[in-house]
């Protein structure tokens, strides 16, 4: 039994956590859910006593009725890895790149003096087998493994000594949906078989619904509601829980409209990357990132493109935007060929919104300069006063104020920045808007509002969308037709509802089966 009682935490005098209390039971999963900045990761680090030095805590974290917050650092070292294990969000950087995975798993045993060198290797082997890596040799290095495999190694490291509590902080957020399902299965199995308590921290209500016996909803450093998962999710007593629940499955209202002529077409497009350099003038075999892809986007249509990371969807996007040359096939937009050399007037007609709300803007430019940046694409570059007026209108159209144009991008939140990015894309009155993971980095409630905005803009301006995402829920909410991409090829396409209801290709079926779903609780009114 591990209990957190009235845990409060402040860093540099600023309160991060306030009176957080919950309890975890062996063999059960406790879900901690909330948006970014709600304090869920800090709660986990407080349990492990791995907080930054400037953090001050009060309250208690009790294990066998001993308060961990009072323990000297040396005793905490003996507990970490032994009684308390933890895995983190980013498996790509969580392992030491210059040490073999066998040594990293065995280190947990050796550091606690549990096993000798040879025994530790045997145990490491057994634990790696247990987490589903029987085929991976102990002397491999992290960079030789995929993200999912690395997360399994992290899990093996954390459970090497069968800790009583395993903390998993967003363990699948950085992974693809099919890999996520496998890792969640593994964690579920470990809880059942090894009888450990699992503290699962996530932003994803569907994951919690799928995994947790108990759940606590966190907002701004406080737990606003907790209880058995089915009860919390079905009753939704707290308005914040309700808001999260609704936003997670939000579908903007879209007016159906007749589709017009094809606006953007690609036929048999190949995009190959030169292989890695193997000498001064030699290269390895080229990588086929996009392999014979054809697509058609009609006027007024919203077309989705789903696929996991590395499937080639970003590469395809760049080719469709005329940023990269293609090695085969043809792309045409608005009746003209698309290529890196295409005229500005054509570029003005096809604009884009990217994923990262923080990397999308030159930090040294003001919003008016940023939004006005694509103006030179127009035949008639409007005069200065006109420009500011148009920028103001564009900001109004995306739900910001014209007065925002004199601010710098760092003065805005992530959602507001995405609105600025949309304003920039709309400034040249494009016909086609490419949305490349445009809502993927946003919290659910912000995401829902941006989706509303996109639906509204489409209705008002008759835009056509190419909506690229790894997130099936989002694609389902905003598109009329969907294409599924795997390893550079389109494996299935059709009307969105039809594909989701009755997927034809086995890859689509696997994707849909792997995606965690929110149970269809009746919405309390």
């Amino acid at each position, binding site marked *: 039994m591990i209990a957190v009682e009235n845990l409060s935490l402040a860093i540099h005098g600023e309160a991060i956590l306030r009176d957080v209390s919950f309890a975890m039971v062996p063999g059960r999963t406790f879900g901690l859910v909330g948006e970014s900045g709600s304090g869920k990761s800090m709660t986990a680090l407080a349990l492990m006593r791995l907080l930054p030095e400037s953090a001050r805590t009060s309250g208690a974290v009790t294990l066998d009725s001993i308060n961990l917050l009072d323990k000297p650092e040396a005793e905490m070292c003996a507990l970490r890895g032994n009684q308390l294990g933890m895995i983190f969000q980013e498996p790509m950087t969580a392992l030491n790149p210059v040490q073999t995975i066998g040594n990293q798993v065995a280190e947990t045993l050796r550091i606690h003096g549990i096993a000798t060198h040879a025994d530790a290797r045997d145990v490491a082997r057994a634990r790696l087998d247990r987490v589903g890596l029987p085929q991976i040799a102990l002397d491999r290095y992290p960079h030789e493994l995929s993200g999912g495999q690395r997360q399994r190694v992290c899990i093996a490291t954390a459970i090497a000594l069968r800790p009583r509590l395993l903390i998993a902080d967003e363990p699948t957020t950085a992974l693809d949906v099919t890999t996520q399902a496998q890792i969640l299965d593994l964690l579920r199995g470990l809880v059942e078989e090894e009888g450990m308590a699992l503290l699962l921290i996530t932003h994803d209500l569907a994951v919690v619904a799928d995994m947790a016996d108990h759940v606590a909803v966190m907002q701004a450093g406080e737990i606003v509601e907790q209880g058995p998962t089915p009860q919390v999710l079905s009753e939704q007593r707290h308005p914040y829980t309700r808001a999260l629940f609704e936003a997670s499955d939000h579908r903007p209202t879209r007016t159906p409209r007749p589709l017009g002529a094809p606006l953007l077409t690609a036929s048999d497009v190949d995009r190959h990357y030169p292989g890695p350099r193997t000498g001064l003038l030699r290269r390895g075999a080229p990588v086929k990132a996009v392999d014979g892809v054809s697509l058609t986007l009609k006027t007024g249509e919203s077309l989705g493109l789903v696929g996991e990371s590395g499937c080639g969807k970003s590469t395809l996007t760049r080719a469709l935007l005329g*940023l990269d040359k293609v090695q085969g096939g043809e792309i045409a937009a608005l009746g003209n060929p698309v290529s890196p050399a295409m005229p500005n007037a054509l570029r003005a007609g096809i604009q*884009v919104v990217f994923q*990262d709300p923080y990397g999308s803007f030159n*930090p040294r430019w003001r919003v008016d300069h940023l939004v006005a*940046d*694509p103006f030179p694409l127009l035949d008639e570059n409007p005069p200065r006063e006109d420009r500011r007026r148009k920028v103001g209108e564009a900001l109004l159209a995306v739900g910001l104020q014209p007065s925002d144009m004199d601010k710098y991008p760092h003065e805005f939140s992530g959602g507001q920045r995405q609105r600025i990015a949309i304003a920039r894309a709309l400034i040249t009155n494009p016909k086609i808007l490419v949305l490349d993971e445009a809502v993927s980095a946003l919290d659910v409630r912000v995401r829902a509002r941006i989706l509303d905005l996109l639906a509204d803009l489409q209705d008002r301006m008759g835009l056509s969308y190419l909506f690229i995402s790894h997130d099936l829920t989002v694609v389902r909410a905003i598109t009329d037709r969907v294409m599924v991409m795997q390893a550079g090829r389109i494996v299935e396409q059709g009307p969105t509802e039809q594909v989701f209801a009755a997927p034809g290709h086995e890859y689509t079926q696997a994707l849909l089966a792997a995606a965690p779903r929110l149970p269809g609780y009746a919405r309390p009114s």
Partner: protein
Amino acid sequence: MTRLPVSMILGAALSAVFLAMALLSFVWTPHDVEQLVIANRLQPASSEFPLGTDQFGRDLLSMLMVGARVSLAVALVAVSIGVVIGVPLGLAAAATRGSLLDELIMRGNDLIFAFPSLVIAILITAVFGPSAFNAIIAIGIFNIPVFARVARGGALSLWTLDYILAARVAGKGRTRISVEHILPNIVNLLIVQATIQFSLGILAEAALSYVGLSVQPPVPSWGRMLSDAQTMIYSHPMLAILPGLAIVLMVLGLNLMGDGLRDLLDPRLRRQRQ
């Protein structure tokens, strides 16, 4: 505005003192440094000679002032050479990442690293004879790959950001993006590197003039004051101590200023402070 660190103020003050000395030496020095007055040789510090004189009767303070001018000028021009040639090369390499041009620029850089400044100076001197120009070229050439690397490294991390893609969607070419978006965002890195190279340049100039590969007599320089003092070290150690101290203080001042600048300009550190 955040409070300036004490070390940076100290560094800026030290640098300013030497800069003032160097500038003043253009219009006025206490004594003529090219006039050898044997009668005045090896005078102790006095009101006429604040720091004393050397074995040729020259006023040490005047020599230090002119020496500061030489040091600063050589280092400044050498850093400029590095910036003017190295930065465009680095930007071009980053803009064409992985291409033959990038490869050629980087291999060329590696090659220059195989020629330490001193070796370049030796080669040039062997053929053209020693001069201040020689020192400038030798130090300047070695600065080129330094700035090319810093510029390329900084630029590469920016090229992966979405705002560069957005600029390309807005129809901008690689050159324009490099100038409009990349350069302004790596200027901090370049300023910090420039202060480092500047102080290294002063050290290198001192070393070159110590072995006679930089400015020639009668123009005094700190390095040659040291080599002149070497034979006098038993009887008049101050002759060797003072010019060395001048070098140390000036380089220390520049380094402290550079460190302070880095802390001020590094956005990561700035965010932490806020």
